[in-house]
């Protein structure tokens, strides 16, 4: 049997990808960062970098977002909230981990209240290194994600590693 999706489905996928590509809703979560990464994320919104020209807009609620930007090592107390925020986002969702801390714990690796990197808690699609990464690097991270999306392949549904623990 032919496994190829029907023409209708193919067209719809294309339309969906096109729409998604041009209107990315992002949300920012600070899981214990030093603020350095956060102000650089904010700087991407402002006139010099103007990330809105790619159709990317920062939203206030996870329910409106496609992309989660996480900064900072995951502290004990923020961990639960990070998972919660991730869960509240509609599918398909993508995670960009911004900054050395969120990738490996950075300078804070080994501190007693730091659990570790973001990808130990939720699945991450793009890592943007730097302490902090320049706004250009953050934009590049988002663009790489868009490139991946452009392939048009519907991604398998991402599953957080600890989803059972929080469901109640």
């Amino acid at each position, binding site marked *: 049997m032919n496994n190829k999706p029907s023409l209708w489905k193919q067209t719809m996928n294309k339309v969906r990808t096109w729409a998604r590509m041009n209107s990315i809703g992002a949300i920012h979560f600070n899981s*214990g960062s*030093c*603020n350095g990464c956060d*102000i650089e994320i904010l700087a991407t919104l402002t006139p010099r970098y103007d990330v809105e020209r790619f159709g990317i807009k920062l939203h206030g609620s996870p329910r409106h977002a496609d992309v989660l930007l996480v900064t900072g090592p995951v*502290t*004990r107390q923020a961990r639960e909230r990070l998972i919660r925020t991730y869960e509240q986002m509609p599918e398909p969702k993508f995670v960009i981990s911004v900054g050395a801390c969120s990738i490996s714990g950075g300078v*804070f690796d080994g501190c*007693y209240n730091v659990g570790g990197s973001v990808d130990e808690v939720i699945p991450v699609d793009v890592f943007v290194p730097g302490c*902090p990464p320049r706004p250009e690097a953050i934009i590049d991270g988002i663009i790489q994600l868009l490139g991946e999306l452009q392939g048009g392949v519907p991604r398998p549904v991402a599953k957080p590693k600890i989803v059972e623990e929080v469901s109640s």
Partner: protein
Amino acid sequence: MSIEQKLQTAEQLLAPWNKETIRPEENRLDVVIQPEALHEAVSVLHEAKWGYLSAITGMDMGVEAGQLEALYHFCNGPAITSLRVRMPRNEAVVSSIADIIPPATFFEREIKEMFGIEVNGLAVTDHLFLPEDWPIGVYPQRADFTNEQAKAMEESHVDQMPEPGRVGENTFVVPIGPQHPALKEPGHFSFTVDGEIVTAAKMRLGYAHRGIEKAAESRSWVENLYLFERVCGICSHTHAMAFSTGVEQLAKVEVPMRAQAIRELVAGLERVHSHLLWLGVAAHEAGFDTLFMYSWRDRETVMDLLEQITGNRVNYSANLLGGVKCDIGEEQSKAIKEGLSYLETRIRHYLEVVTTDAMFLNRTRGIGTITAPEAERFGLLGPTARASGVMRDVRVEAPYGAYIRYPVSLVTETNGDLEARCVVRLKELLVSCFAMRSILDNMPDGPLTARMPRKIPAGETVARIEAPRGELFYFIKSNGGEIPARVHVRTPSLCNWVSVLEKAVGRQLADVPMLIAGMDPCFSCNDRVVTVVDSATQENWSWKRLREYGIEYYSR
């Protein structure tokens, strides 16, 4: 009064309880007192108006010594008097001094949860930085607690803040955060509202608490410089500067004048970037996004300058122990001056906007007014205090480094409302720009660094630096080794939080974001919990009392 006279006055005042006097440094006096005498001694200092309580440092002398120590630092200009209270490890109790000095509550809660020093009469006993389900009897700052022990501990699974919902006939709890659209940092607030009016405000921080002070005790002096720079990404230079100043004082190393001038220059640029950032955020909270975009656009000028000087936009690591790593040449000096001229025009323009734009004034004028006595009582610091007419600026009171040679003048306002806070910050920038110009015009010659020993001689020191948000306090202790024995950081935001939450009660919920933004909060550096305490009676407000207060306000 000279430093010596001030310290003598303090010594006389404290004479009845004095067990031992130590003079660790020229400007410091340490007085050892019994735990029972603490309350009385503090009230005498307070009544004589000898300075203000700047920080309480906890220390663990080690398992063998079996002693804990709490240091109550009072600052009066450049003079510092520290009350040292020594207690046995297994029976450490002091009495609370929050009835005399309300902001001491935070410091006390910190030593309680970090060192296990019991504080009698503490009104709020919740955790300050640690998760609520942190095991009882485990104190992370004690000498026998290791980071490995923490790794072995279970993950925290508690989310202790209330869910949104109706709690009374007309009262609701509105939880905000830690992920929320307004601020870029994680703080959790819960506001109880009666209609539109806030009747109670509570805040839970600790989402960004990482345990830096503990980590410092296992890293070398040089590694720590970079660690402390990352306490906060906005005022990173000030943290690095405070740490290196402290270490240099301990090592008795004289930093070359040129290095000091460059430090002040970078600190000045950092102040411009921080205040413009704040102006943007405050404008955003007020619904004035145009101003947000403009001020952030102009801020990029400073970011470029910082990048040109140091090679990085944020966390620039301009400091080294003993000096700075980057020089300022002719070309850079010219670029900075050009940048400053542009910024000065823009700052003047913003000054006009914040004082004349009707829409913005509606959100700032007469809102969140803090009078001078209130500011003193809350222990406010930095521009927030100066907007209420309190003269508090370390650069002026106790000049350090290059500020002796290139002084800045004090900027104060009297109204104490949000508008005054905008004005103070902007005027302060003009003063900073002026000081930066005079540095560039009279740049001293000489080397950039002095030689630092790898091992820092044993001793204790205090470094106070004026950060963009207020006085930053570092206490550093060395045992003569390659790593510090203790570093205690007291950041300015901590002292400013109380005021916001107290001022939120009785106002409309819509004003709250502006109030919070008005003090320029910083979570990553302080991370604590605040509950509203009735300052007159020192009690937690009961539900009923809060409700009555709200209704009373509403019907006014």
